[in-house]
């Protein structure tokens, strides 16, 4: 698969390890820098711990187009999804990689994000699940849990 030349900033890995090993964050949102050369951390669960905050951040994400105008933008995110099993056998945590690429985002932005995804994923070891989200409904909590748990979660 063709790859863009974007590199992963070290702080991405640090933030991911804080989420994975230290449980410091519930989620981390990554973005491409404005020159599309580097993937950096945009925000973490420190300013808004709830899932709805996370959702709002993704929905309101913006990217610069070539002309410098702002439009809706794609993002990468890692969310520590926790859910109860429908069989009653306890709770599960899945560190989930979310590729958020809304249909109404800029074409260039969507393209660069798609071709830089592998670079970031390789830098983040131990991801349990991956979700491709293109519509606001794909990042509703119920849809996310359903995909991540492959239908085993309690509703």
């Amino acid at each position, binding site marked *: 698969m063709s790859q863009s030349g974007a590199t992963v900033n070290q702080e991405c890995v640090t933030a991911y390890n804080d989420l994975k090993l230290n449980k410091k964050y519930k989620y981390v949102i990554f973005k491409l820098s404005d020159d599309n050369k580097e993937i950096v951390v945009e925000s973490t669960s420190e300013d808004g711990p709830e899932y709805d905050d996370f959702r709002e951040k993704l929905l309101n994400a913006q990217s610069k187009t070539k002309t410098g105008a702002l439009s809706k933008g794609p993002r990468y995110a890692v969310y520590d999804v926790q859910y109860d099993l429908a069989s009653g056998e306890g709770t599960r945590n899945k560190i989930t990689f979310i590729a958020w690429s809304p*249909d*109404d985002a800029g074409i260039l932005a969507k393209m660069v994000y798609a071709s830089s995804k592998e670079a970031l994923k390789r830098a983040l070891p131990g991801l349990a699940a991956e979700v491709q989200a293109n*519509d*606001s*409904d794909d990042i*509703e909590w*119920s*849809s996310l849990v359903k995909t991540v748990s492959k239908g085993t979660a309690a*509703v």
Partner: protein
Amino acid sequence: MSIELEKILAAAPATTRGQPTQLSCDSKGQRIAYASGKSIFLRNIDDPSICKQYTGHTATTTVAKFSPSGFWVASGDVTGKVRVWDAVEAVNTKGEYAIISGRITDIAWDGDSQRVIAVGDGRERYGHCFTADSGNSVGEVSGHSKIVNAVAIRQQRPLRAATVSDDSTMCFLHGAPFKFNSKAAGLHKGFVMGAAFSPDGSTLVTVGADRRIQLYDGKTGEPTKQIGEGVHTGSIFAVSWAQDSKRFVTASADQTVRVWDAESGENLHTWRVGEEGSVNVDDQQVGVVWPHGRSDGLIISVSLSGDINYLREGSDKPFRVIQGHNKTVTALGVGSESVNSGGPPTITTGSFDGRVVSWDVSTGEGSVVEGQSHSNQVTHFTSSSGQTFSVGWDDTLRTIQDSTRQFLSTSPKLPSQPKGIATATSGGRPFIITALTDSLAIYSPTGDLLTNHPTTFPPSSIAAHGSLIAVGASNAPSIHLFTLSGSSPTNPTLTFSTTIESTSPTLSHISTLSFSPQGTHLAAGTASGKILVYQGTPGAGTWTLATDRWSAHTARVLDIAWNPAGTHAVSGGLDTHVHVWSLAKPGTRVRAANAHKDGVTGVAWVGMKEAGEERVVSAGGDAAVKVWKVSALQ
């Protein structure tokens, strides 16, 4: 929140004029199986609202037969495929077998529930014999030159089978493996429609379009005698034996069902369906089954209209008639009393063929609304003070009197094709407003056209609350609001008030609209599957977006209905799912996936509330109406 299927008010059997409709009953006499649409329905005889629906077929189904063991059902469709599946839950499919290249007309099981013969309209062959569990061949159907209409297998050994065909012959097969043995030609003078072996295996009977009832020896296939000559005055479509092997019952196009004594050839009992002295094509009897394992002597027949008739000796008329739709349901309406005052939960459904059925949701009983109905598909219903109004593709507005469940004779012709209908009030008077292709026509409740208000946009849907009318456009994601004013009963005026435009560039046009009962919220479903909820105050002209998170449908939203409190709504769409949404917590939504094959066309919230559980009904492309239990609303 959770949503759970409570009951299925099943579709009526699919019928075709001039063709038999196959009915099957399980060996205990508890359930009947029949084909309708792309589904097979298994219905309890005593309480038809206890029903299972099998949706494994991808094409229109034609026949379903219980195995003698009662554990399996074999069903066929128009593409020549036979599926064998479990009769208990109607979910697990044991096998799918491609038998012939055309329509399957009949299926028969052998006494061991192992072998199946399926026959029909093929090109290379007219049927095949195979094992139910693996599809291995156990013989061949040969000897016919035209479509085979029915097959019967002797339930004892030696195994025998009979196939009857449009070529007016009966072929007798010896098994197993089943092979052609002899052919009885020259007896029937027309299409042979039905064949049945007596339960003890001693006699075979065939019936046909030449009104002949011919008996044969069950072991040799030798013709023995003809009975009842000249009694039936129409084609005989079906035959079924009583458990005692002495009597059998025939169903005919002369609207009668007759019981015969096989020994003496005497016509023991006759039921004639339909009005005395008049001929009605819809009352032709196209299928019959005599359930075994029952003590009450019940006989079940099917009319061409799809009505299931329960017959019993001692009465000359059916003592019970089960009615429903056998074409796609296109509209669903709720009686005004049942929504607001918690009255009897009745709903009205209209189907693609213009049939309108009124249902009592609590008992699950449906009855066809009498009188002159629409001659084409029913588009929409609305109700107002004891009357239900409907519009349809025959471009008429028709009125149903709720108390008598009858169409009134007045049916004004609409200026153009209707898109929807709603009831608005002005000066305390109700007015009926229909959205047409390029105008809004206002009618009085008595059916008089008062004004026809041209619009600047093509309407797609309409909803009303009080004097406020919302009309969706079919070319843009915009909703146009109008106010009805004027206190005269003959001269109301419609004033344009405002337009709600969506800013989202990806949104498609509005497909359905619904006001909450309080009038404070307006839900708009779009052709791309999103539902937008607007908030406003009736009277004031400002409407703001309340939520755009009701967006789990993946195809056109076809109907939305609010609960009486205006806090939750149910929606159905072309993606076959039913969703229940919450206004306070738009993220919590529940889904009934694949609720209706070929799309959900109508939903309603009915006034049956008990212990935190509410009821939602839906109707759709499978011609069935389903009642859902919604609990733990939040």
